[in-house]
């Protein structure tokens, strides 16, 4: 191994707060969030873009945190599971719907599913079940069988249509 691995300091906004921190060039955004900033809500499952557990929002769009480098997030707005609740700490309509509908069991995949659906419902508040199942196709859950997740997403969509912020 070389003595000095290529590193640099990056500045980005995570959940509304600006951070400057050092990262190795090769670190993924997901690893940087976990190890660099201590935001361990973002989970890493497969680390090759298949499972969706590491999904975070970058400039509002859902992306794989394991397939984007931390250095590529320089100057960007990142939102993680830790940033989804309302400012007063109450759950977002989506989070509340997951709780009410038993939309999670072990919870490992949940951060990626909530970030994915937060962006999707913001853009498609009228989505029905087929659209939501397709939107969820990039997130693997091994516990629920997806039915309660879809039920929660439909409930959240109703709440959002009634005027709550996603």
């Amino acid at each position: 191994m070389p003595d000095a691995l290529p590193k640099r300091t990056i500045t980005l906004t995570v959940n509304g707060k600006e951070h400057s921190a050092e990262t190795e060039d090769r670190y993924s955004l997901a690893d940087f969030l976990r190890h660099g900033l201590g935001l361990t809500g973002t989970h890493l499952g497969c680390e090759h873009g298949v499972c969706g557990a590491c999904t975070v929002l970058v400039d509002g769009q859902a992306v794989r945190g394991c397939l984007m480098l931390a250095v590529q997030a320089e100057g960007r707005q990142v939102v993680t599971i830790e940033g989804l609740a309302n400012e007063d700490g109450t759950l977002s309509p989506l989070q509340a719907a997951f709780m009410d509908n038993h939309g999670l069991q072990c919870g490992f995949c949940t951060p990626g599913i909530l970030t994915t659906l937060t962006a999707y419902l913001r853009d498609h508040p009228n989505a029905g079940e087929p659209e939501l199942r397709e939107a969820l196709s990039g997130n693997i859950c091994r516990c629920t069988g997806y039915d309660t997740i879809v039920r929660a997403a439909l409930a959240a969509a109703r709440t959002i249509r009634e005027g709550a912020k996603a």
Partner: protein
Amino acid sequence: MKPAPFTYHRAETLAEAAEMAATLDNARLLSGGQSLMAMMNLRYVAVDHLIDLNPVAEIAGIAIDGGRVTLGAMTRQRAVLEDAALAACCPILREALGFVGHVQTRNRGTVGGSLAHLDPAAELPGLAALLEAEITLTGKDGARTLAMADFPQGYMTPDINPGEILTSLAFDLWPDGHGWDFREFAQRHGDFAMAGVGSLIALDAGGRIGRAAVVLIGVGDGPLRLRDVEDILTGEAPSDALFAAAAAMAAARPMSGDALVTETYRQHLSGVLVRRSLARACARATEAAHA
């Protein structure tokens, strides 16, 4: 699981990226990263230098001009999928892009990245073959353009020389009212297809097939244009018997087989997909003619 160490280089302009590509040893270009980063995480690929093309705005964007479409290499797959003007003049793009990965990967994945990666089951190289696209590659000393037909040199091996950057894809539009269809078979939505097919059909004034293009993906080393099938379709009136003959011809091709999908199964799938795809594309063209 981490990539082997490398030095990251952020290119701001195409000229800067070309200079880096010409001078850095053991370097790779990073576009959307939806295949390359996974391969680096798995350490199938190890590089000393990674040149990030994401900031290079001049090679991103969609232009439709005078019956010709140009897609910048760094155009996100999601942008192609959601572009209303493209969906109006070249509707097969939207239908096919819906099969490309998932929303999270389409948000980052690019047109050029998919072409340069050249996965045999990838939709974008299949579309480029179907639309007879031209690909432009730019290096430090200039640019060259080649036909998509000449681009694949073998399994996942595009004709890109060291130091060259794939900068755009361009193709001529089919006439208004043409029929289209794209479909594939995969075990789960968003997985790589075991076989896929794209079809374009233009009817003549008498309702016969004036022009046909059919491509298979996921069945060999690269996209497979079915010229023999196109020949038997041209000049004929659409019919179930014609589609069945086309399907039999497609299924007779030698195809790849692996531990999960045998050659026989791929041939069977290809025949079924071609038959259904042609029926749909012809129905859409007929519908447009009567609209």
